[in-house]
């Protein structure tokens, strides 16, 4: 009994000791606190970061030469470059760097830094490196083709007369951020261009500098009072890794965080009723689709491909499973991209699908498997499809797996059907056109393994049309090519494109000004205020 009494007294003492410590559940006025799953961050080096969260952080630390107008994504706006032009030869681009910009270190930002940054990204050529190397730049010619002719002039010579808009849009990607060459050079090790150091530190000129970074735990940003666009409206941003959405919700309701970034559909619905919480949303570039492997004899029949497009209850899924997090979308360019189309030719029509299956010689349907990662809402959508397809006699077996596991199988072309999402790599129509519509070599050892390749879809003609579009110098004609290709793609492709993602950020009512864009690198913290 004595033990019990002692324990009870102990607990009581502990709770009185605790009470005042836990009471002030308010975040500091000048600090913005976000809860987000940030375990996808591999690197904070702008030449290497390529995941959602990493790119978002990089975009708030570094500046680029030019950027997309957040109000009109079809328009380019100056950032570090105050003007730019292309010579008559179509390959020589000149950028005039604005004067007076400074890095966080206090070093002045010049064209030499810009040249160094692009050379660096091309030379170390990490995951996003191809966004620049696709213009014929590589580690051997970088020094000669990317150069600063004086402190204010950057010249880049690309390999072919590409569509100028294509090159400009690629320069808005995080990989083309400008780094402080003096600081990075000082932290170089074994010719790594400072990569090891820059993974975990920052050397930029953007709205914030990186204050702390602990993988799988949190990162903190410190406002840059000398930012070229004016000091951010808050002093510090802390992004904490909170993997469990339910925990994020509790923290937001309690007021311990200002933003919850990963709430599920049900949680969003629940917090909408809280007067202290506002839900913001914005269309993201991510597309939810099915990939039908053309090595499967049944899926290779054109009628079967079409039938499956009639066998999706687009409306029902949106309403019942995806409300507020996905919207219907049936073409490979996400809404908000240059060249995107609104056409939605398909709806649920079981009779039509049956007809098509009969035409394909499969009046009784067939059996097929689908690799499904076991996360919401993908797993739920897959189950709904299973039920719908059964009505047409298609026996769908779901093979659950972890994200990396299903992806490994998909990349090796060992799937029948893959359900997943795809996001654009950079803000230009070519990114999705290329992956969904180009397959230069359908062999197992192809150099370019696009999504079309992963599904073994052999399409020499569409490949040619799309590779022509990147050389089209007339922007209007270029857009027309993408529109036409998408309409053809909708008809014949082995991709059942179903939905476009909506990014949702729930916030405390007093935390205003977070800008969400279609790409992760358009998400900006600088205007967030708390009152």
């Amino acid at each position: 009994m004595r033990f019990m009494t002692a324990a009870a007294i102990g607990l009581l003492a502990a709770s009185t000791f605790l009470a005042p410590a836990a009471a002030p559940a308010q975040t500091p006025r000048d600090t913005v606190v976000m809860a987000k799953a940030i375990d996808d961050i591999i690197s904070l080096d702008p030449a290497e970061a390529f995941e959602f969260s990493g790119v978002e952080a990089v975009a708030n630390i570094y500046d680029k030469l030019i950027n997309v107008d957040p109000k009109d994504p079809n328009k380019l706006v100056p950032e570090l470059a105050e003007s730019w032009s292309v010579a008559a030869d179509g390959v020589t681009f000149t950028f005039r760097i604005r004067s007076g910009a400074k890095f966080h270190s206090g070093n002045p930002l010049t064209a030499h830094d810009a040249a160094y940054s692009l050379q660096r990204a091309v030379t170390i050529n990490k995951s996003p490196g191809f966004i620049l190397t696709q213009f014929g730049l590589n580690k051997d010619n970088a020094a000669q083709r990317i150069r600063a002719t004086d402190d204010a002039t950057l010249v880049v010579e690309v390999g072919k007369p590409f569509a100028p808009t294509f090159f400009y849009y690629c320069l808005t990607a995080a990989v083309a951020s400008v780094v402080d060459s003096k600081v990075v050079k000082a932290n170089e090790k074994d010719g790594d261009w400072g990569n090891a150091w820059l993974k975990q530190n920052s050397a930029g000129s953007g709205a914030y500098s990186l204050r702390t970074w602990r993988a799988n735990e949190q990162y903190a940003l410190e406002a840059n009072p000398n930012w070229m666009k004016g000091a951010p409206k808050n002093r510090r941003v802390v992004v904490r890794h909170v993997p469990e959405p339910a925990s994020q919700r509790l923290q937001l309701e309690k007021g311990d965080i200002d933003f919850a970034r990963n709430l599920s559909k049900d949680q969003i619905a629940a917090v909408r009723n809280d007067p202290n919480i506002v839900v913001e949303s914005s269309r993201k570039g991510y597309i939810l689709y099915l990939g039908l492997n053309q090595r499967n004899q049944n899926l290779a029949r054109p009628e079967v491909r079409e039938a499956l497009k009639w066998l999706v209850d687009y409306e029902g899924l949106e309403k019942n499973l995806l409300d507020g997090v996905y919207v219907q979308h049936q073409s490979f360019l996400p809404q908000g991209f240059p060249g995107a189309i609104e056409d939605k030719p398909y709806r649920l029509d079981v009779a039509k699908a049956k007809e098509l299956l009969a035409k394909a010689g499969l009046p009784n349907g067939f059996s097929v498997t689908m690799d499904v990662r076991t996360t919401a809402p993908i797993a739920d959508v897959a189950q709904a499809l299973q039920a719908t397809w059964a009505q047409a006699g298609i026996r769908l077996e779901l093979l659950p797996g972890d994200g990396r596991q299903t992806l490994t199988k998909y990349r090796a072309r060992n799937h029948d059907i893959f359900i997943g999402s795809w996001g654009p790599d950079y803000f230009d129509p070519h990114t999705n056109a290329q992956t969904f519509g180009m397959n230069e070599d359908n062999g197992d050892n192809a150099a370019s393994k696009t999504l079309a390749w992963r599904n073994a879809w052999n399409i020499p003609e569409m490949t040619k049309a799309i590779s022509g579009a990147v050389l089209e110098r007339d922007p209007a004609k270029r857009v027309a090519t993408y529109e036409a290709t998408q309409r053809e793609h909708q008809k014949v492709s082995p991709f059942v494109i179903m939905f476009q993602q909506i990014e949702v950020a729930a916030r405390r009512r007093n935390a205003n000004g977070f800008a969400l864009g279609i790409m992760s690198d358009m998400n900006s913290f600088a205007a967030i205020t708390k009152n």
Partner: protein
Amino acid sequence: MNLARTTRLLGREVAAVAVTFLGLLLVTFFIGRVVPIDPVLAAVGDRAPAEVYERVKVELGLHLPLHEQFWIYLRKVAAGDLGQSVLTSNPVLVDIGRVFPATLELATLGTIIGVSLGVPAGVLAAVHRGTWIDQAVRVVGLFGFSVPVFWLGLVGLLVFYRVLGVVGGPGRLGVAFDDIVDPITGVILLDAALRGEWEVFRNAFSHLILPASVLGYFSLAYVSRMTRSFMLEQLRQEYVTTARVKGLPERRVVWRHALGNAMVPLITVIALSYANLLEGSVLTETVFAWPGLGRYITNSLLNADMNAVLGGTLVVGAVFIGLNMLADILYRLVDPRAR
């Protein structure tokens, strides 16, 4: 003579530990290589072009035959280098130096809670066998066995954090208390106390107490069941009857004599349950956004980040072996026959 024997025994012990570690590494290594996950993906992501993919594959040494990869890894470990984690870009040792103290803090307080409540509860249940007290302890224990930790954690947060507001939320510290205390040991409570930062200490404690109680509850469920059965065993022994006949107060008979003897097997039980918690509790760590060892290993495994997984496995192995040794020593102290 005696010295030679001690040396021989010690040598045997060391050899046994070495073989255990080797086996542990071997199994983990090959499991990691047979799981159908591509480790290069963790390093470069899904969208890397083929050339980058191939280059990184070579950089990671994954193009070599399996046995060669293992041999290279072993040589590095022998030199004290656990390699680098692909996911965090840190040396694995640095990562573990950060996540292990977080788990240690949680598991230690969890075990203290579990033992300080579980042992008395088990004793009471045994003494009052068949009464409502026994039933109550049983129900509490059963609940602990059957309720998912995930659910218990979320409900705990809802009640004590959201509604009552008596504890801190997910995470190890409130934002305002971040980066005040320079780490010495990595165990925030200890560091804050050593530096005399009592505000930080209180905040850290308020964040720690709920997840520790959740873990402690599971430990309590187990420890109380085991204590009860060990006590029943002891209470049947003749020496207990003798003590009672001699007129010793019942309290002394139960808490000193019977529990003293039940302590011997109980030490092993407690050590094992502590070791279990030290492995890291993935679900608890997820709900409470606790950057601990369990989540580190699991996340690494799901991304086939094998250096991190192997490093984590070594730590877990060391914890088990260490606690076993500790239990042996305690055992000898408590039980005169084992001396």
